[in-house]
């Protein structure tokens, strides 16, 4: 076991040294804090992939994974002490610790990705996937046979609710009589999401949009089991945040994914630091910025997603960007509790 670790570490250690030597003075050194493991197959892993793009572009980078809100203050301070120019704290959980750190640390810039509020001294990056979800809704509304759609969220957070609203609005825009069942499960319980999916399928739902991070594996497995057993009554699904179009369980039944291109978002803030155009505030990433977009499953473009449907999706995207089409904002009054 140790030998295998050795063989995988040694080149990395050497490579790190080489990278540090070759890092261009212009590219900022970037540290990434993640809440989960960088192998979680979801939110944290996507961030690591985004960071890898910066590494490839010549930045000195490091990643600190599995950081809880309790430890975040220490880790942020540590990264600053290590001379990183920018710390991307990947998760709303880091908002308060980052704002506290920014009070005393001026040499290092802090960006919190996934945060929806402004705090002095830091950049909050807010991702709005509702528009891409609208485009997914158009597909679902067009392709559903039963007229019954399902949405599964990992938690009833506003960002998740926004995806739901976008999906509903998109579906109703092509077929007014669709119904969309919504359920909120968990970000990490694969089995729970699987059983929720099975429940949806048994209700006759044939389009299921999961926004449950890596636990979507449970959704896809349930769909695979159903579709393998009932090839004449297929259930279709989607991806959210990450690109699930090639997921091993149900890739062939995954029509499209509403993705967040974290690499783009990270590159934006890194560029601001490099160009010294960095200023605290909130950065809103959405369809227009090219960061939160719908990606159609390329293998299904000749099948269910025909040219006419593709045209509809494109047109809606243009209208959303132009502002001629808006998703009804039902964001509840901030203080109201969001029941789980």
């Amino acid at each position, binding site marked *: 076991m140790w030998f295998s670790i050795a063989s995988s570490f040694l080149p990395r250690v050497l490579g790190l040294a080489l990278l540090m030597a070759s890092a261009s003075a212009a590219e900022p050194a970037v540290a990434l804090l993640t809440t989960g493991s960088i192998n979680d197959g979801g939110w944290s892993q996507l961030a690591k992939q985004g960071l890898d793009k910066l590494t490839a572009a010549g930045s000195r980078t490091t990643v600190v994974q599995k950081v809880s809100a309790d430890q975040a203050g220490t880790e942020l301070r540590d990264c600053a*002490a290590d001379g990183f120019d920018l710390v991307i704290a990947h998760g709303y959980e880091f908002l308060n610790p980052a704002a506290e750190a920014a009070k005393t640390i001026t040499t290092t810039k802090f960006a919190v990705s996934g*945060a929806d509020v402004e705090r002095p001294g830091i950049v909050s990056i807010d991702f709005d996937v509702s528009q891409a979800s609208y485009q997914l809704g158009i597909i679902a509304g067009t392709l559903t046979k039963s007229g019954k759609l399902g949405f599964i969220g990992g938690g009833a*957070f506003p960002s998740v609710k926004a995806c739901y609203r976008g999906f509903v609005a998109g579906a109703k825009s092509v077929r007014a009589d669709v119904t969309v069942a919504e359920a909120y499960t968990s970000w990490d319980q694969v089995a729970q999401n699987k059983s929720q999916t099975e429940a949806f399928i048994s209700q006759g739902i044939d389009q299921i949009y999961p926004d449950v991070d890596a636990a979507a594996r449970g959704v896809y497995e349930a769909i695979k089991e159903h579709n393998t057993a009932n090839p004449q009554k297929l259930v279709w699904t989607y991806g959210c945040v990450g690109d699930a179009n090639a997921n091993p369980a149900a890739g062939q039944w995954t029509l499209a994914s509403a993705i967040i291109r974290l690499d783009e978002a990270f590159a934006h803030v890194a560029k601001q630091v490099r160009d010294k155009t960095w200023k605290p505030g909130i950065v809103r990433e959405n369809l227009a910025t090219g960061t939160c977009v719908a990606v159609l499953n390329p293998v299904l473009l000749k099948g269910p997603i025909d040219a006419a449907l593709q045209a509809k999706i494109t047109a809606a995207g243009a209208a959303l960007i132009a502002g001629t089409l808006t998703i009804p904002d039902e964001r509840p009054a901030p203080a109201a509790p969001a029941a789980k």
Partner: protein
Amino acid sequence: MILKWAPMSEAIIAVGAATLALALVVGGLAIAGFSPWSVIAVGWAGIAGSPLRLAICAQEAIPLLMCGLAATLALRSGVLNIGLEGQYLLGAVAAVAVLTLGPVGSCLPWLALIAGGLAGALWCAVAVGLERGRGVPLVLSTILLNVIAIHVVGVCVQGPLHDPATAAPQSAMVPDGSRMPLLFAGTPLHVGFLVAVMLAVALWLMQRRTALGFELEVIGLNPLAARFAGIPVGRRELTAALGSGALAGIAGAMQVAGVTWFLSSDVRSYGYAGIAVALLGRLHPLGVIPAAFFFSGLDLGARQLERRLDIPHDLGDVTKGLALAAVLVAGALSRRLGSSRPGTP
């Protein structure tokens, strides 16, 4: 001499186990091609490389120490309180409620500690009530209440304690004026550290020098003999359970009042870690202090190793596990050797 816990040999067991675990892990890294000296140097620098890092190490030891004391109090009395995790969380919730909903003031953090202690004790009382009233074993009920506590936190940070400024499930920040005062300016170490050390000494004196401590020790060793000696076993066990819950609750309150200054659904609890710390500290209130530092130091050192040498920081947890396994095995062996050799004065 009076206290028949033979603290010296206990300390040797614990230190030996910790050393063995460290040696195994560093040795393994050496086989994997890392220079042991650089591993030790980098790890040590992560723990004590600067006064700031030392302060961080002490700060991270606080919740471990508090939960370790809570576990010591319960386990020494034969009360299997596995619910420190939940009691800690409830303490944190109560403290955040006091600190963010109440007025601002320098006495607030102390009120928050009291509230946290009460909440932790109350959460433990639920488990004791289930045991007394319904016959649910404490081990089970406390574990299940841990799960419920996580959801209580989730509900609170989305409901009554939710920060209206954000959609994220988290509480508002504790205002500057209501935070635990810092021990040294420029470091994150707050005065809760002194409180925790004083509580350790107080618990030690309680166990060693008071009738209550003696009765709890007797109950822990032989509850039947305690009953036949007229000790109100049920009431004393309740005292130990509530005290243990209160200590865990204070730990949670200290963490939000002195370190995080807010609560989110992603909160980390130190309850299970506290049980491990207590076992490594050989269930001695003063032994728990170095054990807590060992754990927090391993965390810090391992993270430094990950950042500098790309060694996964999970090796820190591996080291903790090895130390714990070694200390338990050594403890069992020494008991066996001790029992085969009666008549030790």
